[in-house]
C-alpha cells in the first residue's frame, strides 16, 4: 500500500474548506469548484482502481485504549455513494453560483462553498469508514455543516428549520451512541479485547435480547436519517427553508446514510435481530411509501412536495432492504444512487424556477412552459425520472425492488405498487399546475428568461446520468451485486425460490 487513496479522497474537500477560511474573496467560488472537481477526479481514479481489483482498504490504530482504528474501505455500495457525493457537489455549487448576488442571503458565498466542501469531506468519510466509532464520529459531525447551511442560507424560518433538523438528528445520533457504547462493552466481553472493526464485530453472536437492544438503537438513528414515517417531519421543514442546493445535499447524500447504515451495520452486525425486525420495517416502509406520496399530492409548496416524494422513495429503498433478496437489495443500492440524481435534478430545476418567480408555492405558477420551454422540459424529464418511467435509471431500481419484494411477499409488492401510481399523480399534477395552462400575469412578469447557459450546464450532466444508466444499468449493477451477495451471505439469508419457475 503506497498512497492511502481513500484518506486522500476524503481530505481534498476538507483542504478546500480550510483554504476558503482565508480571505480569498474574488476567487473563492472558483477555488471551491476546483476542489470539488479535483475530488471528483480522484474519486473516479479510486473507482478505476477498485474495478481494477486494487486493494484500497486502509487501517491504522487511532485510539488504542478504545480499540478504535482509522479504518477505511471500499465496497460496491460505498463506491456508488462516493460517486454520488462527488458528482452532486459540483452540480450544487454551480447551481448556487449566483445565489449570493441577489443580496437576499446573509452569509457570503465563500462560507457556503466552505461548508459544502466540509460536508462533502465528512460525508465521504461516513461512506468509507469501516470502523463503527469512526463512522459514528463522522455521522454526527455531518450535522454541524448541514445545520449552518440550513440556518445560514435558508428562507424566513431557517433558524427554526435548522434547529428542528439538528434536534431530530441528534436524538437519533444519541440513541445510536447508546448502542455504540453497548456494542463496545459487549464486544469487549465477547472478544476479550476492544475492537470496532466491522469485520471483527460481524457474527459475534450477541444474545438475542442484547442484539435486539443494540440493533434498535442503530435502526432508530438510521430511520430518522432516511426519513421514515413517523420520524420524517424534520425533512419537509428543512427542504422548504433550505436553499435547493442545501436540500440536494441533505436528501441526495446525507439521507442515504440511513439506508446505507441499515445495510452496512444493522444487517451485518445483527443479522438475527434485523431479520426479526423485518416485518415491522416492511410495514413502516409501506406507510412511508403511501404517506409520502399522498402528502406530496397535497403539498402547496414545490420544495415541500419534492421532500415528500423522497419520503415515499425512501420507503421503497427500505422495502428493498428488509425483504432480504439479492435483487431487491441491489435494487435498493442502485435506487439510492438514482434517487440522488433524480431528486437533485428536480430540486435544482425547481429552484431555478422559484428564484425567478420569488415564490415556491404551486399556486404562484401557471403556464410556465410557454415562457420558459427548456425549463419546463427539463422539469418534466426530472419529474419522469422521479416517477420511475421506463428508460430512466430509477425505473430499473424501482422494478428490482418490487420484483424482489414480490418473490418474498406478493401482497406487500401489491401495496407498494400503489406508490408508483401515486408517484405519477403527484408529478404530473404538479407539472400540470405549474407548467401548463394559460400564462398568469405574475409568471409573465417574473419568469422572463429560460434556463441560461450555467443552469443548463447544471442540469445536462444530471439528466445524462439518469438516462445513461436507464439504458445500461448493468454498469452499476455489476459493481453493486457482489457487495449485496456478500452482505446477505454474511447475514446467512438466502434468496427465496423463484415463485413460478419451478412448476
Amino acid at each position, binding site marked *: 500500500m503506497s498512497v492511502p487513496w481513500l484518506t486522500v479522497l476524503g481530505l481534498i474537500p476538507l483542504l478546500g474548506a480550510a483554504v476558503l477560511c482565508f480571505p480569498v474573496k474574488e476567487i473563492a467560488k472558483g477555488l471551491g469548484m476546483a476542489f470539488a472537481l479535483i475530488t471528483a477526479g480522484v474519486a473516479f481514479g479510486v473507482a478505476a482502481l477498485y474495478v481494477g481489483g486494487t486493494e484500497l482498504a486502509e487501517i491504522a490504530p487511532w485510539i488504542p*485504549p*478504545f480499540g478504535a482504528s482509522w479504518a477505511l474501505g471500499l465496497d460496491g455500495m460505498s463506491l456508488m455513494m462516493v460517486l454520488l457525493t462527488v458528482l452532486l457537489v459540483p452540480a450544487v455549487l454551480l447551481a448556487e453560483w449566483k445565489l449570493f448576488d441577489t443580496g437576499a442571503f446573509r452569509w457570503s458565498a465563500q462560507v457556503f462553498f466552505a461548508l459544502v466542501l466540509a460536508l462533502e469531506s465528512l460525508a465521504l468519510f461516513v461512506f468509507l469508514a469501516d470502523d463503527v466509532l469512526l463512522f459514528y464520529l463522522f455521522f454526527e459531525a455531518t450535522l*454541524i455543516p448541514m445545520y449552518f447551511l440550513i440556518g*445560514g442560507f435558508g428562507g424566513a424560518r431557517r433558524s427554526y428549520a435548522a434547529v428542528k433538523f439538528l434536534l431530530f438528528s441528534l436524538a437519533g445520533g*444519541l440513541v445510536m451512541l447508546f448502542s455504540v457504547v453497548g456494542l*463496545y462493552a459487549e464486544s469487549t466481553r465477547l472478544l476479550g479485547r476492544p475492537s470496532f472493526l466491522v469485520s471483527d464485530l460481524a457474527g459475534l453472536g450477541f444474545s438475542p435480547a442484547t442484539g435486539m437492544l443494540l440493533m434498535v438503537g442503530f435502526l432508530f438513528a438510521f430511520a430518522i436519517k432516511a426519513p421514515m414515517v413517523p420520524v420524517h417531519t424534520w425533512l419537509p421543514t428543512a427542504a422548504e427553508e433550505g436553499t435547493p442546493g442545501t436540500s440536494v445535499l441533505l436528501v441526495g447524500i446525507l439521507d442515504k446514510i440511513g439506508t446505507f447504515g441499515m445495510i452496512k451495520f444493522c444487517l451485518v452486525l445483527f443479522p438475527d435481530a434485523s431479520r426479526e425486525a423485518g416485518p415491522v420495517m416492511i410495514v413502516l416502509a409501506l406507510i412511508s411509501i403511501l404517506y409520502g406520496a399522498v402528502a406530496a399530492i397535497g403539498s402547496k409548496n414545490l420544495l415541500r412536495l419534492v421532500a415528500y416524494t423522497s419520503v415515499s422513495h425512501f420507503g421503497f429503498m427500505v422495502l428493498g432492504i428488509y425483504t432480504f433478496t439479492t435483487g431487491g437489495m441491489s435494487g435498493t443500492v442502485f435506487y439510492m444512487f438514482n434517487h440522488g440524481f433524480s431528486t437533485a435534478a428536480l430540486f435544482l430545476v425547481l429552484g431555478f424556477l422559484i428564484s425567478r418567480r420569488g415564490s415556491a408555492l404551486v399556486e404562484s405558477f401557471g403556464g410556465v412552459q410557454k415562457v420558459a420551454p427548456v425549463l419546463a422540459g427539463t422539469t418534466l424529464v426530472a419529474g419522469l425520472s422521479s416517477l420511475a418511467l421506463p428508460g430512466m435509471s430509477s425505473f430499473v431500481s424501482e422494478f428490482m425492488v418490487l420484483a424482489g419484494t414480490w418473490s418474498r411477499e406478493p401482497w406487500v409488492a401489491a401495496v407498494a405498487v400503489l406508490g408508483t401510481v401515486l408517484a405519477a399523480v403527484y408529478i404530473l399534477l404538479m407539472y400540470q399546475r405549474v407548467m401548463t395552462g394559460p400564462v398568469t400575469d405574475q409568471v409573465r412578469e417574473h419568469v422572463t428568461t429560460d434556463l441560461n447557459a450555467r443552469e443548463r450546464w447544471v442540469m445536462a450532466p444530471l439528466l445524462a446520468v439518469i438516462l445513461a444508466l436507464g439504458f445500461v444499468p448493468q454498469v452499476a449493477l455489476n459493481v453493486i451485486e457482489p457487495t449485496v451477495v456478500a452482505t446477505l451471505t454474511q447475514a446467512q439469508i438466502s434468496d427465496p425460490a423463484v415463485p413460478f419457475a419451478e412448476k
Partner: protein
Amino acid sequence: MNIPAPTFEWFELSPLLIVLVGACLGVLVEALMPRRLRFVSQLVLLAATVLAAIVMLVINWRQGSGGILAMGSISLDGPAYIAWGSLLVFGLLGILVFSERRLDNGATVFAASASSVPGSPLESEATTARLEHSEVFPLALFSLAGMMVFASANDLITLFIALEVMSLPLYVLSAMARRRRLLSQEAGLKYFLLGAFSSAFFLFGMALLYGYAGSFDLKAIDVAIAAPTFGPGLLYTGIAMLAVGLLFKIGVVPFHSWIPDVYVGAPTPVTGFMAICTKLAAVIGGVRVFYVALGAERWSWQPLLAVLALLTMAVGAILALTQTDIKRMLAYSSVAHAGFLLTAVVGALAVVPEGQVNSVGSIMFYLIAYGFAVIAAFAIVTLVRDSAGEANALSGWSGLGRTHPALAGVFAFLMLSFAGIPLTGGFIGKWAVFSAAWRGGYWWLVLAAIIFSLVAAYFYIRVIVVMFFGEPNRQVAVGKASGMTWVPIVVGAAATVYLGLFPGQLLELLAGAEVFWR
C-alpha cells in the same frame, strides 16, 4: 522514651510543597513589596511556582516514584499524579485570567477594597486611588494546594484539612467582584454558610467512620469493612454523612443549590477556576474515598449514586433550559456534567482488559476534556461586555457570530464539546464515562444519560442559534484583552480539538495511571 522521627518524602512531595511555599511567599510579597511592584511580582511568582511544581511533578513521574507518603497521609499514585498535573495546568490557566487588566480600564475584576461597604466613601476612595487586591494570587495558590492534597489524601483527617484549605480562599475570592458587589458578597456568604454546613456533615461522618473502623486511614477502613467488629449502622450513617460533604463539593443534586448563585456572583475568572479545579479535586478525592475505603461496601452505595446521577443530570439539564444568563446556564450545565461524571463512578470496579481505561481513567479524561473547555468558555464570557461590565444576559450575545465570527466560532465549538458532539474532547469524555457505566452493568443509566444529553444539547445549541442567527446587539462589544485572557482561550480550544481528534495518547497515559494505591 523513644519517639520515632516522622518520615517525610521531601522530593516526592515537592510539587505540593512548592505550591504551598509559593503561596506563603506571595503573602510576604504582599507585605513587603512597594505597591506598584506587587502585581507584577505576584504574577511572576505565580508562574514560577506553578511551572516549578510541574517540572518537579514530571521528574517524579519519570522516576516512577510514588506510594503512600508522609506517614500514610498522602497517596501519590497514578490518579494523584494525573490530578496534580491537571490541577496545576488548569490552575495556571485559570489564575492567568485573574490578572487581566486591559478589559476594564486597567483594573482587574476584583474590587479595589473588598472590605469596604459597597457604595461607601471608602470604596470610592479606594477606586480613585486605583488600589487593587493582588493577594488574590496567593489565595488562589493556597486553594490550589488544598485541592492537590484533597485529590491525594490517604486518610480522612488529611482530607478534611484539605477540604478547608481549598474552600476558605474560594469563599473570599467569590466575594471580591468589582462590579455587582452585593451579588458577589451574597455569593461568598452563601458559599461559606453552605460549605461550613456540609463540612459539619463531613466531620460527623468522619467521626462515625472512625468509631466503626478505629482509624482514619482509608486502607484501615477497608480492612474494617472486610472484618467488621461493629454492626453496619455506624458504617452506613458514616458513609451517608461523608457523602454529603463530598457530593456538596462536586455539586451533585440535591447538594447543588450553591452552584448557580456562586457561579453567577463570583468574578468570572474565579468561576472558571472553581468550575474545573474544585470539581476535579472533589471528584478525584471523593472517588478515592469510595473506591479505596468503601469499595467492599459498593453494593450499598452504587445504586444510591446511580439515582443521584440520574437526578443530577435531570435537574442540571432541565433547569439550564430556562436560563437566560450565560453564567447561570454554564452553572447548571456544570451540575449536569457532574451527573454525567457520576455515571462512571457507578460503574466502579468493573474489570477491564489490559490497556483499557477503567472508570477512574474515564472520569479523569472527562474532567480534563471538560476542564479545558470550561476554562476557555469562562474566559470568553469575560470578553463580551457592555457599558456596565460583562454582558452576561444571553440576549447580549445575539449576533456575535456576525460581528466576531472567530470568537463566536470558538465559543460555539466549546458548546459543542459540552454537548458531546463528535470531533471534540467532550464527546470522547462522554463516550468514556458511558462505557464505564455500561461495563458496571448500569445500561439503563446510560440510556437516561443519553436522553439528558439531548436535553442538554438543546440549550448549548440555543447559544449557537443566538450567536449566529440573531441580530447583533449594538450595546455589546468584545473587549480588547491581553494575552492573560487569550492564552487560556487558545490553549483550551486547541486542547479540546486535540482531545477530540487524537485522544489516544492521553487515554493511554490514563490507562497506565488509573489504579489507586491502597
